């Protein structure tokens, strides 16, 4: 499921963190393509995600660490303990220079963002219970912090709480045990909007600390809120799977008085909507049902085209399945294990499009668990079906698979070289004699596979000055050519025989989504995200 969503207005990118700790970055201008991803880690449950200083992405989680991601090398730059117990919320200041985290112990900590790290600055007044939500006033002078049963308003300069706004626990006449403030939003006019577990959306006046308006919108928790940059609309997500849109509407056409009005409900989710984001043209929501839904706002869309349609991102954008054509094996990649399946077969014949009866059902051959808490980044099975390779963030594994007459045996190839630490993409050549590994330093290794052992052939070093890592590989069926592509630059074609860079296809505006080399003609086919 999706836990957090953070939208970056400058680059029009969306960072999505999932419950397994994976962070994905989608490029909204490139047709919602998932450009980058950071593999998860069992101990890192992300609770908050935010962009700061333009392009820097931070996340914080229940292990109490603040993590910054390296968006170029696609790895974690550093992790820093905030020393406040699990972190429940995080917010970057409007200027982007400061980072605020809310911790389990009720402390709100302010960090200064330095060019290459973050630095603890000070604590705000400590509250009684955990800080579940945080929001900066756009002017940067105040913050609102949602806790259990109350909302605190802090003055940033003094760091003291100036208001404590108690939230009604009552829900439809029944008093719930606790009212959890799942989200707050501070508007520039001083209004604080809170969403809570009693299904309410409440408007508070932060100057006086009083409740202005109350919208009861759901029977269950309202779990997330996001306000547009113009502050004329916001979106909330509920545990019922409904997303409500609120708009600031003038009361009458000729008066300047405006009011917040609940307008449209959207029911695109089946489960809790844990995170919402508001881009200038769309409402973005994600939740437990793992779908990322991008709902464009019709009134903001200039022309009706494909972009104006509702988008539901359900399928992964990465290659998670590889197959061995000869042995009819399929390798499925999961977060912490791999599964090997033998395809079923049929004796019947039929026309194209017919469904044939299976004479032998698909068979689950192997369940391979990873060691350690890290998620699998990529995996591959050789076309001959005798090699399996996979990689986590810190280790690379290669296995020799022998499968004959229902006897299956797996043997790990040990003594991997030191440079093979982690791979972003693994590919076997068509004859299964060579293994191509794209490492996260941007280098490309070629390894010759022998019976039970291997030999490192060559390493293509990245072009000077770039640290961009390759994440797409394609090899020609005759094994002479290797094409590799990164996240933004062009496609490099290497000659495997000469071990030389053959040429570079110039970069296109949109990222590459798939690569292939045609078997007979050796033409390179490149698919881009703009179709």
């Amino acid at each position, binding site marked *: 499921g999706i836990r957090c969503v953070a939208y970056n207005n400058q680059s029009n990118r969306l960072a999505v963190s999932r419950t397994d700790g994976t962070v994905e970055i989608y490029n909204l201008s490139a047709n919602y393509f998932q450009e980058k991803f950071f593999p998860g880690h069992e101990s890192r449950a992300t609770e908050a995600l935010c962009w700061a200083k333009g392009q820097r992405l931070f996340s914080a989680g229940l292990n109490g660490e603040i993590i910054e991601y390296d968006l170029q090398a696609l790895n974690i730059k550093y992790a820093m303990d905030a020393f406040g117990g699990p972190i429940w919320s995080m917010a970057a200041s409007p200027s982007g220079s400061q980072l605020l985290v809310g911790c389990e112990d009720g402390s709100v900590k302010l960090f200064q963002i330095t060019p290459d790290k973050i630095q603890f600055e000070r604590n705000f007044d400590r509250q009684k219970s955990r800080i579940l939500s945080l929001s900066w006033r756009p002017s940067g002078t105040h913050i609102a912090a949602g806790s259990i049963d109350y909302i605190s308003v802090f003055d940033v300069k003094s760091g003291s709480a100036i208001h404590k706004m108690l939230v009604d626990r009552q829900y439809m006449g029944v008093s719930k045990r606790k009212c959890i403030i799942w989200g707050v939003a501070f508007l520039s006019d001083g209004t604080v909007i809170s969403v809570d577990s009693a299904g309410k959306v409440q408007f508070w006046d932060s100057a006086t600390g009083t409740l202005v308006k109350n919208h009861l919108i759901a029977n269950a928790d309202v779990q997330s809120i996001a306000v547009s940059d113009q502050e004329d609309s916001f979106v909330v997500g509920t545990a019922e799977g409904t997303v409500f849109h609120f708009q600031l509407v003038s009361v009458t056409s000729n008066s300047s008085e405006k009011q917040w009005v609940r307008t*449209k409900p959207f029911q695109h989710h089946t489960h809790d909507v844990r995170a919402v984001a508001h881009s200038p043209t769309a409402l973005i929501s994600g939740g437990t049902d793992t779908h990322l839904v991008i709902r464009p706002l019709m009134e903001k869309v200039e022309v009706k085209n494909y972009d104006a349609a509702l988008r539901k991102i359900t399928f992964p954008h990465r290659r998670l399945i590889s197959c061995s054509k000869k042995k009819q094996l399929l390798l499925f990649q999961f977060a912490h294990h791999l599964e090997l399946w033998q395809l079923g077969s049929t004796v019947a014949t039929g026309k194209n499009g017919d469904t044939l009866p299976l004479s032998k059902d698909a068979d689950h051959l192997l369940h391979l668990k990873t060691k350690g808490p890290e998620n699998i980044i990529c995996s591959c099975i050789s076309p001959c079906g005798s090699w399996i390779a996979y990689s986590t963030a810190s280790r690379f594994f290669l296995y020799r698979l022998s499968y004959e007459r229902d006897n299956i045996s797996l043997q790990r190839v040990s003594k991997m070289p030191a440079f093979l630490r982690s791979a972003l993409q693994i590919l076997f050549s068509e004859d299964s004699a060579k293994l191509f590994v794209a490492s996260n330093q941007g280098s490309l290794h070629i390894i010759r596979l022998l019976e039970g052992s291997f030999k490192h052939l060559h390493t293509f070093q990245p072009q000077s000055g770039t640290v961009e890592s390759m994440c797409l590989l394609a090899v020609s069926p005759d094994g002479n050519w290797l094409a590799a592509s990164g996240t933004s630059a062009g496609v490099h074609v290497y000659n495997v025989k000469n071990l030389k860079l053959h040429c570079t296809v110039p970069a296109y505006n949109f990222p590459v989504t798939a690569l292939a080399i045609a078997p007979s003609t050796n033409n390179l086919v490149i698919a881009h995200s703009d179709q």
Partner: protein
Amino acid sequence: MVEQERVRVVRCGGSELNFRRAVFSADSKYGATRRCRPGRGWSLPGAAGKNCQARRDSLGGGSWLGKGCMRAPPGTRDGAGVCVLCEEGDTPQARGTAPWGARPLPRLSPAGRLRGPGGRAHVSRIGWALGRLEDGPGVDVYATAVALPRGPSFFRTESYIFCVSGDFVKVYSTATEECVHILQGHRNLVTGIQLNPNNHLQLYSCSFDGTIKLWDYVDGILIKTFIVGHKLHALFTVARAEDSVFVTINKEKPDIFQLVSVKLPKSSSQEIESKELSFVLDYINQSPKYIAFGNEGEYVAAVRDFYLSVYFFKKKTTSRFTLSSSRNKKHAKNNFTCVACHPKEDCIATGHKDGKIRLWRNFDDDKKYTYTCLHWHHDMVMDLAFSVTGTSLLSGGRESVLVEWRDAAEKNKEFLPRLGATIEHISVSPAGDLFCTSHSDNKIIVIHRNLEASAVIQGLVKDSNIFTGLMIDPRTKALVLNGKPGHLQFYSLQSDKQLYNLDIVQQEYINDYGLIQIELTKAAFGCYGNWLATVEQRQEKETELELQMKLWMYNKKTQGFVLNTKVNMPHEDHITALCFCNAEKSENPTLVTASKDGHFKVWILTDDSDIYKKAVGWTCDFVGSYHKYQATNCCFSEDGSLLAVSFEEIVTIWDSETWELKCTFCQRAGKIRHLCFGRLTCSKYLLGATENGILCCWNLLSCALEWSAKLNVRVMEPDLNSENIAAISHSSMGSDLFVFKPSEPRPLYIQKNISREEVQWGVFVPRDVPESFTSEAYQWLNRSQFYFLTKSQSLLTLSTKSPEEKLTPTSKQLLAEESLPTTPFYFILGKHRQQQDEKLNAALENELVQLPLTENIPAISELLHTPAHVLPSASFLCSMFVNSLLLSKESKSAEEIPDDVDMEEEKERDDSDEENDFTEKVQDTDNTDLGEDIIHQLSKSEEKELRKFRKVDYSWITAL
């Protein structure tokens, strides 16, 4: 011609049916009866035939009781041996000619052939009468009773509701639920009413007759008529546009409506032409529900199908918003059904067919518009209304639940459930304290702000199917018929009010389309209202019939009917008729049911006591049948000695003592549709009407057909107070009423074309106070009144009174007693004024002599209580009156004693009795002692006092 006794067809508890064409006056009827062409009687339809002949032979003209009875020979159904109608020739052989074609049984020729003229003469006569009718003066139809509140209803200062009822606008008091005025003057259906926004004591109404009328509804006076010329479908007023109103008119095509504004010119004359129309909106719906004005007339919103159009008066632009109307399931029911505008904000609420309510905002921008959905109703939203402040929105629909949405929030809603029937309209009083809903069952409910129903104005419940027909409850003299589903309604015709509903089915009614409900099909009162028999049925499939008969006993303690006996499946098939034996002497109540299964069953009341309690119950006593024919009708004779049961074409007569078949009559003229015995002096006759349009009268003594007439009888009802029988025939021209005595084939009264549509049921209602119509033709109306119900559920009667006259005196009084509403201001100001009054009084008391209480002065009471025509002349009275008032004062000034009196009065104002006695005495003595001297020699001071007194003491005049 008797002008003052004009009979009109009057609608009672009616509907929105436009009934203006069915108008009758007495003189037309005279023409019809007097100038009928004698000798053009027509054929004797039906058959007497062999069995008739045979019977005659066997009985020999003697008493039929003596010889037993003849059964029809086998094979009569096939028509063998039965005479046929002869169509040749025009020579009537009958001995007396009946003006409407009925005539005594002609002598039969041996061949069994009858001779008589064809039926054509009859038809031509109807046509002639109709022609005569149209020149007749007095074209008036009056609708009375609570008619369906067709249009919106409104309040003024919480005291009146207006509702449209046919051609009239009715004014009801919200407090007493009485109709206080009927505004009449429109010549066609009234389609819209609106209060004058600039003068809340005035009301605009518009009608199909192309006029807009302005009324003073407090006094019920028509102020002005504006003639527009087009057929007006709806009316709207806006406070901002002072001299114009908005109406919807129909342009060219039948389905294209326009909203136009009509300028109402200022003029002092009564009738003003106002043809100045300016176009506002096109492509709208005709009903006022589909149009709403918002923000004090800044814009108007109109909906139709899938469009919402908003016209801004300032910008003069129209924005149109379209909802998706694709065929898929999600959007198929997106149709707009109603619209309402927020009174303060730019917000339009629209109701939809799928039960959604959408709240539109930002609609001045074609692109940035937005809407919210509120969804509770499962079926179409019938009407919407905002409260005066706009904080809550009211909606209603088929669920019969009024929903109040507070702050336009989906989760914040209140309900007023169980309102009984579909909510059709909702309106809100201008002050916001009351709402009112009108319902499909002819009901208005006034609802208080806190969602408590405070008053119900219930008319005759309109049910789509009246199976039970019209009946009269012998106790209350109330009209009884099907009401709410599964209920019998008791409707008082005198007060035009529903008395109560009797739940017969006693099951929860689920209002859902396509659900087969239990239907109350038959009901009958017996034994002077002590017993009520009802039959209910439910048929899902052809073979699965659920039947239940219930017998209800009147309980004097609770003043209501209590279920006594429940009979499951009393018959195998549908029950076609139900009748009680209403003979006076009968000690044992008897009920007869006739059914399609070929049997009729006799049910009697027996002792059902056991050791625990005494009880009575009904059991089946006798089952009769006749050749497996379906029993279609049953009827007891007046004295209860005979039972007539019709089996399709054959009428059988049974002795009610022994349940022996006495005789049969067969007319070979189609199935018997109606059957009834004559009453009083005509009790020897039995009348039957067949489906082939023949009315037969049999003489029970001679067991022969007395006369017959060709008449397509739809309704035949005997009058319980006289021998008269009313029959209503139906033809393509309309329905005609005939009133006749069974003894004479000549009708007493004919009223042509009483209704354009088919009359379904009729009933005679005994009058409380007999009328005294002098003219012969109306004598049948003296003791009872005839009510009938048409297919479109309008209850009509023949009456000589106009509806204004029919308003009860009590409701008239209400007009006079219009009191100030008790507002908080009243409490403040009223108190203040009272104090002022008291002060004034005190001052007066100091200044003046305490006057005796006016009520107790004999002269005044005498003056007020003696009839005006026996009073002496005014000059004499005046002097006496003044005298009586002045005497106490006089006595004081003259004799110096009254000072004490004065003192006493001031001291003990409470014991006014004594005091008054005292003053009276003084008065008397003065009268005798001083006499006229004082009257003529009023001193100057006295005159002054008198003047002062005149100025002061007006209160008693208003109090009277």
